[in-house]
C-alpha cells in the first residue's frame, strides 16, 4: 500500500519537475523580478472605482526599469509613478531599480529571452541600435508625430535623434548633457590658479601647480574604464575634430590615423605627471566621485551627473562646497573647436510589448513641468522645451548652454559604437593608463575591433 503511494508520489514529483522545466524553456521568463521597490508603494487598486478617465479601464501593468538607485532620483520617479497611478486607477506600474552595471547585465538576459521591460533606461546609440535590430523595441514615431508632432516638438531635435535609428524613434531623452571638467574652486585657489585652463598646455601647467601644492589634481575611476576613456575621447575630438571620427567610423579612414594616436600621446603626457589619486587604476566611478566629493582631488572629468553623484558619494553627503565647471581645453594645432562637445544623457526606451499606456506614461514623465522639477532636483539637464526654468544652478546652466551651442555634438564613443567595439575601445584606453601598450598598439587594437564590428 505505502509502496504504491510512494510510486504515485514520485510520479507526481517527476511530472512537476518536467512541467516546471518545460515551463521555463517555453516562456523563459523567470527573470522578471517581483519588483521589490513596489513594496514601498501603496498597492494600486486593480478594480477601478468611479474612474477619472472615461476610457474603459482594463487593468494594465507597466514594467519600468530605471537606474536611479539613490535620492533625489529614486523618490522622484516613485512619486511620478504614484501620481500617474492615482490618476489612472487601472494602471499598475512595477518599478525595478537596478544599479548601472547590474542593469546592463540583467537587461541583456531578458532581451535574449525576448521579453524586454515596457520602459527601461537607455543611452541611445550603438547599444540601442542593436536592440532595435533584434526587434526588441517599439517604434514610437507615430506617437511622437501625432497631432502634428505635438510631442516631438517638445524635445530638442539633437537630443531626440540619439534615440532614433534609421529615421525611426524608439525612445525619448529625459536628460541630455555633456562631459566636462568639474573642479573644486577652493583647491584651485589654494594652488594659486586664478583662471580655468583653455589650452592643453595651460591645463598641464595647472596640474603641475596642483601637484606642487600637495593636492591630487584629478580623481579618476579607471577600474570602470569609461571615465578615463572620456579624456582620450576629448583629446581625439580636439585634435581631429568631427572629420577624423566620421572618417574612421564610416571606414574611409582608420582609428590608427594620426589624431587618435596623437590623442594617446597627449594622454601619456598627462599620465606622466601622475595626476591621479592612488589606486586609480582599479577604482570605480563611484570611488572617483567620492574622492572628488570629499574634497581630496581638484578636478574630475565627467558628465552633467557629476554634481549630484559626487554629493551622494561624499562622506558627509554635502559634496564640494564651491563647485565650478569648465570645458575641455583646446589642443594647440588641433582641428576641433573648443565648442565641440562630447556627452550624452539618459532616456527611456520602449519595449516591444509595451501597452499604449506605457507610452502615455513616458509622455507624462517628460512633460515640461516634470522635467523642470527633475532639473530643479539636479538630476540632469532637461532636453525638453520649457523646462529650463528648473535650472537654477549656474553650472548646470553653463552645461545646458554648451550643449545648446555645440558646434559638433558627439555621443560618448563607447555608447555610439556597437557594444562589442565600445568595450574593446575602453579596454584599449586602459592599457595606456597602465603603461602596457604604446599609442600605436592601443590605436591598432581599436582598429582591429572596428574591422570586425563596423561593416
Amino acid at each position, binding site marked *: 500500500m505505502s509502496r504504491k503511494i510512494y510510486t504515485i508520489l514520485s510520479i507526481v514529483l517527476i511530472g512537476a519537475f518536467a512541467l516546471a522545466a518545460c515551463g521555463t524553456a517555453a516562456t523563459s521568463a523567470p527573470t522578471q523580478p517581483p519588483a521589490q521597490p513596489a513594496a514601498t508603494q501603496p498597492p494600486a487598486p486593480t478594480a477601478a472605482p468611479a474612474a477619472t478617465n472615461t476610457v474603459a479601464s482594463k487593468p494594465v501593468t507597466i514594467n519600468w526599469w530605471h537606474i536611479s538607485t539613490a535620492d533625489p532620483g529614486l523618490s522622484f520617479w516613485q512619486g511620478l509613478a504614484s501620481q500617474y497611478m492615482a490618476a489612472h486607477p487601472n494602471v499598475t506600474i512595477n518599478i525595478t531599480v537596478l544599479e548601472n552595471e547590474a542593469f546592463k547585465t540583467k537587461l541583456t538576459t531578458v532581451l535574449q529571452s525576448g521579453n524586454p521591460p515596457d520602459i527601461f533606461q537607455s543611452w541611445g546609440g550603438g547599444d540601442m541600435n542593436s536592440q532595435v535590430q533584434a526587434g526588441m523595441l517599439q517604434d514610437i514615431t507615430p506617437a511622437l508625430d501625432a497631432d502634428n508632432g505635438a510631442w516631438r516638438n517638445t524635445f530638442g531635435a539633437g537630443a531626440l535623434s540619439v534615440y532614433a535609428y534609421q529615421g525611426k524613434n524608439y525612445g525619448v531623452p529625459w536628460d541630455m548633457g555633456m562631459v566636462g571638467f568639474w573642479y573644486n574652486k577652493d583647491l584651485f585657489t589654494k594652488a594659486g590658479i586664478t583662471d580655468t585652463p583653455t589650452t592643453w598646455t595651460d591645463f598641464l601647467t595647472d596640474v603641475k601647480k596642483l601637484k606642487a601644492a600637495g593636492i591630487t589634481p584629478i580623481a579618476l575611476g579607471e*577600474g570602470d574604464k569609461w571615465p578615463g576613456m572620456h579624456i582620450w575621447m576629448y583629446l581625439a575630438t580636439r585634435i581631429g575634430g568631427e572629420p577624423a571620427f566620421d572618417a574612421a567610423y564610416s571606414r574611409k579612414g582608420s582609428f590608427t590615423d594620426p589624431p587618435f594616436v596623437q590623442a594617446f600621446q597627449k594622454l601619456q603626457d598627462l599620465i606622466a605627471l601622475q595626476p591621479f589619486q592612488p*589606486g586609480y587604476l582599479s577604482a570605480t566611478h563611484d570611488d572617483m566621485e567620492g574622492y572628488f566629493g570629499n574634497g581630496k582631488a581638484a578636478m574630475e572629468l565627467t558628465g552633467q551627473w557629476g554634481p549630484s553623484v559626487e554629493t551622494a558619494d561624499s562622506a558627509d553627503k554635502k559634496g564640494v562646497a564651491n563647485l565650478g565647471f569648465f570645458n575641455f581645453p583646446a589642443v594647440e594645432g588641433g582641428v576641433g573647436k573648443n565648442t565641440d562637445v562630447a556627452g550624452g544623457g539618459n532616456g527611456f526606451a520602449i519595449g516591444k510589448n509595451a501597452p499604449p499606456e506605457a507610452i502615455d506614461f513616458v509622455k507624462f514623465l517628460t512633460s515640461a513641468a516634470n522635467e523642470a522639477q527633475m532639473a530643479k532636483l539636479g538630476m540632469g539637464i532637461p532636453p525638453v522645451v520649457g523646462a529650463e526654468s528648473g535650472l537654477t544652478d549656474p553650472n548646470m546652466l553653463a552645461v545646458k548652454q554648451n550643449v545648446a551651442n555645440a558646434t559638433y555634438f558627439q555621443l560618448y564613443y563607447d555608447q555610439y559604437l556597437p557594444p562589442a567595439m565600445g568595450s574593446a575601445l575602453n579596454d584599449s584606453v586602459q592599457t595606456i593608463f597602465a603603461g*602596457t601598450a604604446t599609442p600605436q598598439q592601443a590605436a591598432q587594437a581599436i582598429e582591429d575591433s572596428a574591422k570586425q564590428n563596423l561593416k
Partner: protein
Amino acid sequence: MEAVQAGRDIPEPHQQPRSPRRTRDHLTIALFLAPAFILFLIFLVYPIFSSIYFSLFNWNGMGAAVDFVGLDNFKQILADKIFMRAVGDCFLIVVLSLIVQLPLALALAIMVGRDLPGRAFFRAIFFMPYVLSEVITAIIWLGLFSADPSRGLINALLILIPGIQPQGFLSDIHQVLLCVFVVLSWKYFGLHMLLYMAGLQNIPKEIEEAALIDGANRWQLTTHITVPLLSSTIRTTIYLSVLGSLTQFTLVWIMTKGGPVSASEFMATYMYRFGFVRFMLGYGSAVALVMLLICLAFSVIYLRLAGQPDYLGGI
C-alpha cells in the same frame, strides 16, 4: 580481485527468472533517478551542446544566430595573447596553490588535529573563511587592499613602518595576481585542512605508536607514516584545488574584473568579458568549450596518473 568477483557472483542465482518484483524495483530506481537526470540533461548536457552550436557563429545574443563563421572563433582564441595570459594566470595559481596552499593546510591539519592546546578554537578560526560566501570575501578584501591608506587596513599598517610607501595592491598590475592568490588561499585552505583532518582520523594510532617505539622522530613520523597514509586524501585535495583554480570566477571578478588591463585575467573572467560584457556570445561559447576541454584533459590525465581519488576513503 577475488573479492570483487565473489561479490558479483552472489546475486546471480536470484537473477535467473526475471521476477515482476525485480522489474518493479528497476522502475522505482528509474523513477527516483529521473528528476535528477532530467535536470542534469536540461542544465548540463543541453547547454554544452548549445554552446558547441553557438561557438560556430558570430552572434551577439539578440535574434537568431545566422552569421556562421566555422572554427574562426577557436582560431581567434588561440591567437589571442590575452587568452594565453589567462591560461598562464590560471596555471600559475594552480602551481602556487599546490606548493603553498596545500602544504600549509596539511601542516595546520597535523598541528590542530593533534596536541595543540586550544585546537578546537584554532580549528574553528581556520575554517571560518571557507564558510563566508565568495562575494563577501571579495568585498572584505577589496576594503583591506585599498590603495588609499585612509581606507585600506593593510596600507594603513604598512605606512607605520618607516620607509615603506603605500602599495597599489589591486591597482598595481604586478601585484594584483599575488593579491588574488592570497585571498584564494585564505578562503580555501580551511577546506583542505578539514579534509586532511578527516584523513588523519583514519590513520590507526597503532601504526604511529609502533613507529615511535621504533625510534622515529616527529619529522620521520610525519614524512614516512602520516603523509603516505594520507595519500588518497592528498590526491583528492590536489584534484579539487586544481579544478577550483582553473574555473575560479566570482572572487576574481568582484575584486578586479580581471584587471587592471588583464593583469589578473582568468579563463572564466575572460569568457565572461567576451560573452557578457562585449556580448560576443558565439566567441564566449567557444571560450567556454576550450575551458571545458582543458579541465577535461586535466581530469582524465590526472585520474590516469594518480589513480582514482578514493573519495569515500579520503573524505
